[in-house]
């Protein structure tokens, strides 16, 4: 999430105080992306240094400064909206690495490792779904943010499912070198509560 551009977007509606910017940011995305007031002010200082916002120099109520977007800020915001996010090269995905490493560690049941992560991801998805379920019908911003996370997490689940099947189809699984390991991957029948 680009905090500077989110603040520019809020200022494009009109001049605002820092505290109001924080409130508006949080009311739109807060349950998913919390933002503290310190972050707001350091970001505003940087935006002011770069000439993207300006203050009127007059301190208002409770010595707060009112910030206003500049013409350069409007241009920057428009350009950012149209710039594709950095999708390549792919991030070194920790989960992918864990599954790859699990294949190398003797006595490790990779299907069990996959299930541990599958459960965890679903539990996180349940929480985002609760956010969505509790949101008001007109709270479109929150639904969009929750959806974005849910679709991203669903992608992870689909990768885990595909990895599970792909590994199951391997011609001959290496026998687990640890003693008394059964021939069947019976350890996956344990129910972990």
């Amino acid at each position, binding site marked *: 999430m680009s905090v500077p551009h989110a603040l520019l977007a809020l200022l494009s509606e009109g001049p605002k105080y820092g505290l109001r910017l924080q409130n508006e940011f949080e009311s739109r995305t807060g*349950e*998913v*992306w*919390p933002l503290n007031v310190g972050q707001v002010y350091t970001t505003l200082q940087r935006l002011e240094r770069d000439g993207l916002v300006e203050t009127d120099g007059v301190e208002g109520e409770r010595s707060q400064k009112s910030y206003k977007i500049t013409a350069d800020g409007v241009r920057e915001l428009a350009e950012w909206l149209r710039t594709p996010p950095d999708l390549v090269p792919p991030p070194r995905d920790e989960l992918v690495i864990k599954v790859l490493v699990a294949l190398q560690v003797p006595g490790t049941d990779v*299907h069990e490792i996959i*299930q541990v992560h*599958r*459960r965890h*991801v*679903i*539990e*996180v*998805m*349940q*929480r*985002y*779904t*609760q*956010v969505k*379920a*509790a949101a008001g019908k007109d709270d479109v911003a929150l639904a969009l943010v929750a959806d974005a996370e*849910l*679709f991203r*997490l*669903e992608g992870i*689940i*689909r990768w885990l*499912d595909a990895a*599970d*099947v792909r590994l199951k189809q391997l011609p001959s699984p290496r026998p687990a070198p640890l003693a008394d390991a059964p021939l069947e991957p019976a350890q*996956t*029948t*344990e*129910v*972990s*509560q």
Partner: protein
Amino acid sequence: MTTALELRQVSKVYGSGPSEVHALEAVDLSVERDELVAVMGPSGSGKSTLLTIAGSLEEPTRGEVLVDGIDLATVSRSDRAKMRRRSIGYVFQDFNLLPGLTALENVTLPLELDGVSSKAARSAARQAMEELDVADRKGHFPDELSGGERQRVAIARAIVGERGLLLADEPTGALDSLNGEAVMRLLRAATQRGVAGVVVTHEAQLASWADRVVFLRDGHVVDQTAAPPGPESLLAAGDR
């Protein structure tokens, strides 16, 4: 809370000898009223078998199935059929609405089959259709309804009357993601009114509407989610 459905060490074997298939192996599962449970697993993991056994459409090879505390093996065939009609509602992937009947007649049918008077059945059906926001479509035939409306009518048919157990097999079928979400919201609302629900799905987003997700693999329950800690915990997880 009342346990509406309990499976104890349920196994199901199809065929015999070398062609024997173990669809379910010693499955334990209990579902309370007010609870929506999702069952996830790859194709062939036993999800649909679990649902048909829970709904008494099939008998287990071994183990016990209890609906509202009653062991299905101890009741006569006709009583079991009665239980199936009165206590259990089904939602299928392809909706299974009868094309020659209007939406209202489709919802009324299970009650009328059960001997409920036509007037009482229609009144209960109207109430169920109002809950699902399709009361204004009651005179339409299934082919005059959109996919989302058809599924709402199918859910109304599943919850009409005094049913305590709602079973759904891939209930969002080919619906798009928002119509699928709407179906899950309705199933969740139904369980929050005191029904126990079991939904079989392979879609993680749909499963995430459930209170608990149970994972099946090769006929075994291999795992399940912990009770959801509530959305406020996302604030702590937000700084990933």
